[in-house]
């Protein structure tokens, strides 16, 4: 709105232009397009994350350490099949919980929610921006965690199974991002926010673990190697769709007071 210029100037006098301006000031401000708002929010998230390095590095480091812990806890040098898929998915989900827990902290503590609510924007833009942010965090973090898993624990080489695995991981990431955004927003405005988030999210993740682990286990060799079964991909796709829509529809109720 260029009409807002001149505010710092001294008395401009009651020029004919003045009434025009006044009418502009009294008219409702046009809503900022959703995509622009999403862009602004994600840009801010990225800036804060680059400045604090709070989420992605912590998630990555967590996954590396967890692989080491699994090595000792299971007393295995290499894993394959079901076991490999289970270790990977459990590690990914727990790391995602770390990201989810941090996702809204700055907004809740530093007034970002209020600032957003004061602006002429679509409320659902925040859900979209946060879910996309979490999705981006997950993808970047998996770029570290999955190769590390292949290097440290996985018996058969990933190689040719990689495209399938990427597909399965992405299906999982979308669901985690949707639920993580919803649960993160719920938990951040409760006492004991660090506790409630994982408690709420973990049971909700179970269908994703089932789908993700079963779909990726044939990619990791073992007894029944092959392509992921379609029903697991369908389960995950259904999950993503249902909870994506639910998170989108319900998010605005978490914002207002």
């Amino acid at each position, binding site marked *: 709105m260029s009409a807002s210029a001149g505010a710092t100037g001294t008395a401009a006098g009651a020029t004919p232009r003045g009434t025009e301006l006044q009418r502009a*000031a009294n008219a409702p401000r046009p809503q900022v397009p959703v995509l622009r708002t999403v862009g602004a929010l994600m840009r801010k998230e990225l800036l804060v994350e680059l400045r604090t390095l709070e989420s992605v590095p912590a998630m990555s480091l967590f996954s590396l350490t967890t692989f080491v812990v699994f090595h000792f806890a299971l007393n295995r040098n290499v894993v394959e099949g079901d076991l490999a898929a289970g270790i990977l998915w459990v590690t990914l989900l727990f790391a995602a919980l770390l990201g989810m827990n941090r996702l809204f902290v*700055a907004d809740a503590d530093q007034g970002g929610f209020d600032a957003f*609510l004061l602006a002429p*924007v679509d409320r659902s833009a925040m859900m979209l921006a946060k879910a996309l942010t979490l999705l981006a965090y997950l993808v970047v973090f998996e770029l570290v965690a999955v190769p590390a898993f292949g290097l440290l624990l996985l018996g058969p080489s990933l190689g040719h199974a990689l495209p399938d695995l990427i597909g399965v991981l992405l299906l999982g990431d979308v669901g985690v991002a949707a639920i993580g955004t919803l649960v993160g927003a719920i938990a951040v405005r409760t006492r004991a926010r660090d506790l409630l988030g994982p408690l709420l999210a973990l049971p909700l993740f179970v269908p994703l673990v089932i789908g993700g682990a079963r779909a990726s286990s044939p990619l990791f060799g073992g007894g029944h190697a092959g392509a992921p079964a379609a029903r697991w991909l369908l389960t995950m796709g259904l999950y993503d769709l249902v909870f994506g829509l639910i998170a989108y529809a319900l998010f605005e109720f978490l914002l207002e007071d």
Partner: protein
Amino acid sequence: MRSCAVEVEGLARHFGEREALDGVSISLAEGATLVVFGPNGAGKTTLLRVLAGLLRPHAGEVRVLGADLPQHAHAMRGRVGFIGHEPLLYRELTPRENLRFHARLQGVGDDRVEEVLGAVGIEGRAAEPLRSLSRGMVQRVAVARAALADPPLLLLDEPYANLDPAAVELLQPLIGRSADPARPRTRVICSHDPAGGLAEADAVLGLRAGRVALSSPAASTGAEEITELYR
């Protein structure tokens, strides 16, 4: 006669069983300044948050800039400048980054960001993260944020907290009375300073335990009536 910028009739807001506001009525003409006094917990902040559309009123009629709250709150969004206890700024970002973010949310160009940065006298430190700035500096950035879209209504909760007199003077073009009669600036200010508040006010509202204890034109209100509120 000028139209009303803020009209409130019988406003009530409770938190559970605690009445934060009860039967509050306000009528504020466009361009006028209302200063709200009252002891801590009297409901000043709640009132301001209701007017800003951040809290839903539970009873009564609230009309802000012609929009009935809460049903038509979207019609007034972006036309209200709000300064609360929190600066609504991210500590890890610099003043410039913060204001650019808010400018995008408000649909305001980046040139306006530079303009308000200059107006609050913070250009020199606009590239330092907010957490390294003093509280007075942060308050200046908060004022710049509230004034970004040059809103016709300002809701200011102790806007001069942590500011030195020179800074208060400096910020007047942004949040003081409008110098341009064609662009009136209506203001609701919460204050604890009877003399300073009275000097700015056209009308005075005194709150006590969520109810109106004093409501009068500033011209006919004495500072002792205001100090009485705190007793």
